[in-house]
């Protein structure tokens, strides 16, 4: 129930703050802030409740099952395991920051903005929780529309174009996933006689290699567009660049992660053989992404665009790690999801903070800011270093585990990916050089971070350093999920277990189905 409550809370909070804006903008902001903070508090309390070390083997912490569209075997089925917990914690953490970061930036249509913001967060929450494929697709799409509005209404100069591109790319790939979901549904139904979209039922479906591969492509394409993987990445630089700061924060921090999450949650467990068979190609794509993203990032002059391309590069590690098929790499991926969310999010916040002050994102027009804003410079330095994978910061742990895991799978690709770190250094340092070091060419004068901005950036710093030095809790939390997705080969066992857990539901289906809905 708690899980549904989370989503409802966010949706209700969104609507309420939307209306409250008619009374007072400040009240609207506060309400939004409080809503997300409550959600965050709930997740933290769950985490504490489950014990911070999370050493238990049973991977499911919470489960909620409400039949929704029984004719299709669709249920409102939410469940949370360690991975979901981590992702939710990240979601609400960044959600809080997204509200804060918009405090000054968003001055028109405040109510509608916060409505959209909270609904994006709600949609993402749904994506991270749902255990029903139909519901998953449902949330997958639901999070797009408010995001589209965030970009399209409050974005920068070229916002319409970016918003279209974002929407169309994700929709196109999402629909292909819907096809796969439906095909899976019918294949599973024909095999077992149980027509259900439930994740745990679907897991056990046996597929012929050919079918398996095609169906996996459907899922894969949705996730790698979101991730994004070169050459499906071109929506991302535009979307990131044009979105308002909160939008970029959510895009980079969370929306990209839904792709990675999908890979771990769905692609590997449901299609173990098929994903193993394309692993080399997928890893190659990852490597290409790492290098291509880095190369593109190097030449960009728009701060946000640059950071966007670094995301492309960093997400390459996720592809590399996921398809390395071992626990280390997968743990690295989980870590990367979180740390990238934080470090790139922070860089976007910095870009936003700069934009608020000097109204440009062109790094060629910046320079020498350190003298004026040493605090901001220090913070930026930390995240630039995080983005180039400096040990001691979270990203290093992620990348190191990913690479060392990937090494077991493919040595050549790992070497190239490791070399990508050199390029990461090149583009990361370029940010520092062009923005904070060098000479202040245009003589911008500006004030250092305000208290509110410190409130946003300092926690991010603390978290990224914390993750760099004490990442074990995160690793422990993700362990059961990672293990499950890893041992995809003997998934039938897990499936059976899951089946018994859900036997009451599935049997309810069978009755329902047998009576009314025959697919001959």
């Amino acid at each position, binding site marked *: 129930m708690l899980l549904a409550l989370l989503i409802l809370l966010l949706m209700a909070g969104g609507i309420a703050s939307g209306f409250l804006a008619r009374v007072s903008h400040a009240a609207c902001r506060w309400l939004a802030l409080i809503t997300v903070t409550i959600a965050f508090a709930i997740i933290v309390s769950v985490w504490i409740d489950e014990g911070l070390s999370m050493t238990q083997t049973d991977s499911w912490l919470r489960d909620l099952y409400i039949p929704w569209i029984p004719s299709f075997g669709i249920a409102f089925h939410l469940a949370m395991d360690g991975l979901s917990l981590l992702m939710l914690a990240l979601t609400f953490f960044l959600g809080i920051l997204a509200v804060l970061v918009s405090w000054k930036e968003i001055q028109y249509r405040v109510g509608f903005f916060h409505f959209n913001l909270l609904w994006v967060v709600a949609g993402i929450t749904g994506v991270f929780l749902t255990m029903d494929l139909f519901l998953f697709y449902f949330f997958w799409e639901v999070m797009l529309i408010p995001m589209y509005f965030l970009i399209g209404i409050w974005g920068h100069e070229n916002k319409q174009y970016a918003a279209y*591109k974002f929407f169309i790319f994700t929709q196109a790939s999402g629909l292909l996933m819907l096809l796969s979901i439906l095909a899976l549904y019918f294949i599973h139904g024909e095999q077992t006689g149980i027509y259900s979209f439930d994740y745990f039922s679907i897991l056990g479906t046996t597929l012929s290699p050919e079918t398996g591969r095609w169906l996996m492509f459907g899922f894969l394409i949705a996730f790698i567009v979101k991730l994004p993987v*070169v*050459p499906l*990445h*071109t929506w991302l*630089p535009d979307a990131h660049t044009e979105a308002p700061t909160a939008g970029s924060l959510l895009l980079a921090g969370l929306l990209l992660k839904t792709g990675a999450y999908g890979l771990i949650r769905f692609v590997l467990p449901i299609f173990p053989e098929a994903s193993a068979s394309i692993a080399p190609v997928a890893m190659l794509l990852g490597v290409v992404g790492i290098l291509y993203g880095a*190369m*593109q990032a*190097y*030449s*960009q002059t728009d701060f946000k665009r640059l950071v966007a391309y670094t995301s492309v590069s960093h997400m390459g590690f996720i592809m590399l790690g996921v398809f390395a098929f*071992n*626990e*280390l790499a997968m*743990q*690295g991926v989980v870590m990367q999801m979180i740390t990238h969310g934080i470090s790139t999010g922070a860089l976007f916040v910095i870009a936003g903070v700069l934009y608020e002050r000097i109204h440009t994102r062109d790094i060629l027009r910046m320079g*020498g800011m*350190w*003298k004026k804003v*040493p*605090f901001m410079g*220090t913070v930026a*330095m930390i995240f630039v*270093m995080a983005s180039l994978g*400096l*040990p*001691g910061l979270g990203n*290093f*742990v992620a990348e*190191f*585990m990913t*690479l*060392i*895991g990937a*090494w*077991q799978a493919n040595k050549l690709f*790992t*070497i190239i990916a*490791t*070399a990508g*770190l*050199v*390029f990461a*250094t*090149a583009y990361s*340092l*370029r940010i520092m*050089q062009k923005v*904070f*070091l*060098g*000479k202040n060419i245009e003589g911008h004068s500006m004030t250092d971070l305000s208290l509110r901005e410190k409130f946003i950036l300092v926690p991010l710093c603390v978290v990224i350093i914390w993750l760099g*030095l*004490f*990442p*074990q809790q995160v*690793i422990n939390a993700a*362990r059961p999920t990672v293990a499950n997705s890893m041992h995809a080969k003997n998934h039938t066992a897990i499936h059976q277990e899951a089946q018994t857990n859900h036997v009451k539901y599935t049997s309810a289906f069978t009755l329902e189905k047998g009576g009314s809905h025959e697919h001959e």
Partner: protein
Amino acid sequence: MIKLLWLIPTLPFLGALILILTGSRLSWRIAACIGAGSIGLAAILTILVGYDFLASGKEAYLHVAWNWFQAGDLSTTFSFYLDSLSMVFIFVITFVGFLIHIYSIEFMQEDEGFSRFFAYLNLFVCSMLILVLADNLVLLYLGWEGVGLCSYLLIGFWYTEEKNGYAARKAFIITRVGDTAMAVGLFLLFTVFHTLNIQDILTQAPLLWTTGASMAVVIGFLLLGGAVGKSAQLPLQTWLPDAMAGPSPVSALIHAATMVTAGVYLITRMHIVYELAPLAQLWVGIIGAITLLIAGFSALTQFDLKRVLAYSTISQIGYMFLAMGVGAWSAAIFHFMIHAFFKALLFLAAGAIIMALHHEHDMFRMGGLKNKLPVIYWTFLIGAASLAALPFVTAGFYSKDQILWLAWAGEKGNLWFFLAALTGAVVTAVYTFRMVFITFFGEAKTKISHVPGMRITVPLMVLAALSFAGGFIELPHTLGHFTLFSDYLSPLLPAVTLKEGIETTEWTIQLVTAVLALGGLYLTYILYVKQPQLSNEIKSSTFELHQFWFRGWDFDALYNFVFVRPFVFLSRINKNDVIDQFYTGLVQITEYFNSAFVKTQNGVLRWYVMSIVVGAILILTISLFVQP
């Protein structure tokens, strides 16, 4: 007391943290107290810990702070491992570091980034300590990258100058190239040993591999890659001369005494792997030999005081690599320590000169400082003598002589190594005293603006004393056979087995070395003091070669041409992302179809009728004639 080992890296870290958090709000005195004080405390602690350690007689002490991360087979801890090797390093780091901090208080006093400078410097010391104390390679990598970061920050300390930023980035990126190789080496090690704990690896390696095992060789080369990057050896040496853009104390601490020798530390630390991989070890020696030569020749042609010293550093580290290449581990470490003393001294003295002369770097615009800055002159001279390895009195002589001798006599040594080292010795003497003569002799060309105070001179004198006396803890057996240092290291680092019946030549070798060093000194004296026009003639007659050496053998140009330009070119040309063209193309195609179809919708009734008729004919044709 030894239990407080963890405090040694923690103190500088806290210092850095306080300085960063307070920003520039602290007065320079307090900042200096925190900055230098934390290192001072660490240095005192090092003595106490070292005393405890030696007294305990244990081989090693391990302090586990916390489990860092553990997933799958990989398990890393945040833990410090103290043995005789790391002891030497933390001693040098804290002590030389402390002296340099003291020096910096005066050197940087006027700088507005005073507290930032100390923050970086403290952070550096912390990282360096972690590097040498790490008990596993991941933590070592943390320190490794940490010092890289600090090096970057400090080279680019005066960030408003574009070229400083460039030098800083160059240093970081080039060392990162080496780090990539090292990281791959770690992956390989992990695949083989399922652990990255250094001691576990070292104990298991001999059991797992026979000498010459290909895996060992590959790993050896990969770690060498890392070492070569950090220690500015061929082919990744190009960043160090540019790194002189940083303040002089930085050059002294990071780019002479400590960080650049991290490669030496790494290879020595992993010496068992190299013992098992003779090919890799041979290449360590070859790289050392070549580097010491090309850097030495480059040093001959520089006019920037600090650049001479930079090239000389590369060259001296080349000696250390050469020593490691012949398996003279303790000789390499000995030379590291002595080099740390005299090179820090030289850099600090050079810094004092530069500060005294209004930030003048050009030697040829100095001159005649012998009388004006006597303290500097004498200390510099001691450092220079040590660098040039003037026989019998200087520490440098003993450390370098050991390397020369072992390159000749060691089992893995050979004539080429020896000749390279010998040539290097002459060249060293020449460029060293060229520097001394040009800077301190002749007539003054620039006015002195600042006379160094106590905070500068005291560290100089301490370091001078060390450069002078440091050598006597390890004497060749022809000269007293006093082997305190190598004995101290011997449980850890095996001694070199000599070739059969070669002991007798030791005297000859020492004599040759001594004569060559002195000969070099005399040659320089003639060229730069007696007949200065001669040096100009040589310079103009070999102008091309001179310039070639001056540019560091054109490695920069080569790398620019092969790597940097193509990358930047590709990146620039593709700024708008060629892949996007594909999607734009799709859009254009649909738009083309749109305009084509829209033309059919022309509003003319008969046209619409026609469309129905065509449709009808089509349907009838298909229904009647196509049999699917």
